[in-house]
């Protein structure tokens, strides 16, 4: 027997074997990913662990692997997107799937009807996975009940954006090791943010404490039903948190005047260099993009050493590959 195995490698092999024993009991069974609210902590961790194996595909000489060879993925986006859409397209092609880009701007027909009509057309083309973004909450669920293909929610109304939530917790886990016991502030336009909701479900399920921060006009109703605490002052929480996720002010969704002026918003809720001086030295600064530089975050902070914004984008690719792979596996094993 070799006596040359160092303790580090020994420990790692034990970890792998423990993981293997654990994963033998666990089986991924969802052919749709509609939201994180319905997932267990175990399911979320399974996706994150699976995503680790996909990271290296993007760094090696042939940036492609064959598990979705012969499958067709449709990007069905009823709302604009660059990051998510490209990330899904690239993730699908790195797994050797064929990708169809389906763009349909909102028509005068009611959204429900349009969606189901579109779904029937897609079915007729023989597709395997639909990635859908839609302005109406519940759109992906509606679709999943009406077609045989796998459905992945890429954002529905103000409800969920599950892959963003997953890539956020993946990024935090990669840097901090665990979410257990972390204090995380999600700052800004919570009311209109599906990212805030998916983040909240994923983060709290994995043991973090989430604080929603923003002006009362940008807070959702029925806050007491959610597993979060609320603060109306960024200055109150900035010193306490381990992670801060700055949401984009979504001008396109805002009606009325939720805050008196952009400058005033920025003064009270912007992440400035001044505020960063009071934060923990190892605070993680996140943003789902695209950034309104100078509004929710100063450029120096967005590009500063605490910022993980570009890592979020890179990790998003691995997480989306994992999700595409898993839903397809669940579908293959149901036949």
């Amino acid at each position, binding site marked *: *027997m*070799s006596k*040359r*195995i160092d303790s580090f*490698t*020994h420990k790692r*092999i*034990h970890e*792998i*074997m423990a*993981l*293997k024993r654990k*994963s*033998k009991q666990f*089986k*991924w069974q969802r052919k749709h990913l509609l939201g994180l609210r319905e997932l267990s902590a175990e399911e979320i961790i*399974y996706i994150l*662990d*699976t995503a*680790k*194996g*996909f*990271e*290296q*595909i993007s760094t*090696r*000489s*042939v940036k*492609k*692997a*064959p*598990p979705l060879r*012969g*499958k067709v993925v449709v990007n069905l986006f009823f709302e604009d997107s660059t990051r998510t859409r490209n990330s899904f397209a690239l993730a699908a092609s790195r*797994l050797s799937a064929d990708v169809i880009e389906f763009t349909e701007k909102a028509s005068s027909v009611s959204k429900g009807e349009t969606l189901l009509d579109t779904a029937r057309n897609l079915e007729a083309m023989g597709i395997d996975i639909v990635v859908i973004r839609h302005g109406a909450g519940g759109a992906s669920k509606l679709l999943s009940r009406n077609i045989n293909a796998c459905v992945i929610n890429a954002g529905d109304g103000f409800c969920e954006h599950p892959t963003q939530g997953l890539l956020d917790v993946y990024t935090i886990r990669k840097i901090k090791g665990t979410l257990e016991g972390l204090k995380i502030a999600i700052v800004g336009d919570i009311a209109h943010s599906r990212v805030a909701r998916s983040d909240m479900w994923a983060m709290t399920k994995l043991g973090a404490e989430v604080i929603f921060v923003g002006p009362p006009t940008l807070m959702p109703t029925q806050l007491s039903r959610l597993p979060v605490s609320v603060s109306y002052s960024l200055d109150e929480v900035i010193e306490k948190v381990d992670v801060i996720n700055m949401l984009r002010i979504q001008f396109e969704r805002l009606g009325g005047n939720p805050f008196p002026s952009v400058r005033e918003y920025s003064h009270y809720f912007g992440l400035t260099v001044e505020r960063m001086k009071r934060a923990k030295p190892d605070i993680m600064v996140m943003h789902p993009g695209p950034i309104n530089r100078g509004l929710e975050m100063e450029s120096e902070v967005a590009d500063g050493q605490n910022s993980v914004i570009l890592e979020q984008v890179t990790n998003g690719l691995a997480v989306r590959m*994992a999700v595409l*792979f898993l839903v*397809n*596996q669940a579908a*293959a*094993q149901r*036949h």
Partner: protein
Amino acid sequence: MKVILNSEQIEQILKDLAGRIISESPRELDIAVIGIRSRGEILAQRLSGRLTRQLGKDVPYGTLDITLYRDDLNSPQGTAQPQVRTTEIGFDVDDKIIILVDDVLYTGRSARAAMDALIDLGRPRAIKLAVLVDRVGREFPIQADYAGYKADAAPGELVQVFLSESDGKEEVVIE
């Protein structure tokens, strides 16, 4: 259950495999050892230790996860749901003689998947297959270059390799 190899026999086989690899590999070429998860990883690590000592030069080792290259991923016959794990190869495979290591060679399907996975990482000078147990029952035209024990197990039987690092004991059994 029948024990076919004990701890001394396993060590002896690894010693023999290392000796044959050294005698058959041109001295001027670089060798690296890559194990197929999970037990191939442990065997690869042991082989790399032996080769490094005997050749007096670094013979690195790495780990290959072949899940994404399996041929039963989209097949309803695929029973177990395989978990994707990481491939960890911290060196360039280009122009090296890669000794691909697995615990048991049986149908040849894992070796096929491993070769496809390896080629996506670069262009090795050669890929050689080394296994602890060579079991009858090939379904693909694949043979081991360096085979340890030749086992003639019946189709329903299971050849299981236990290694101290992962299983706390060191033996190969047929059950």
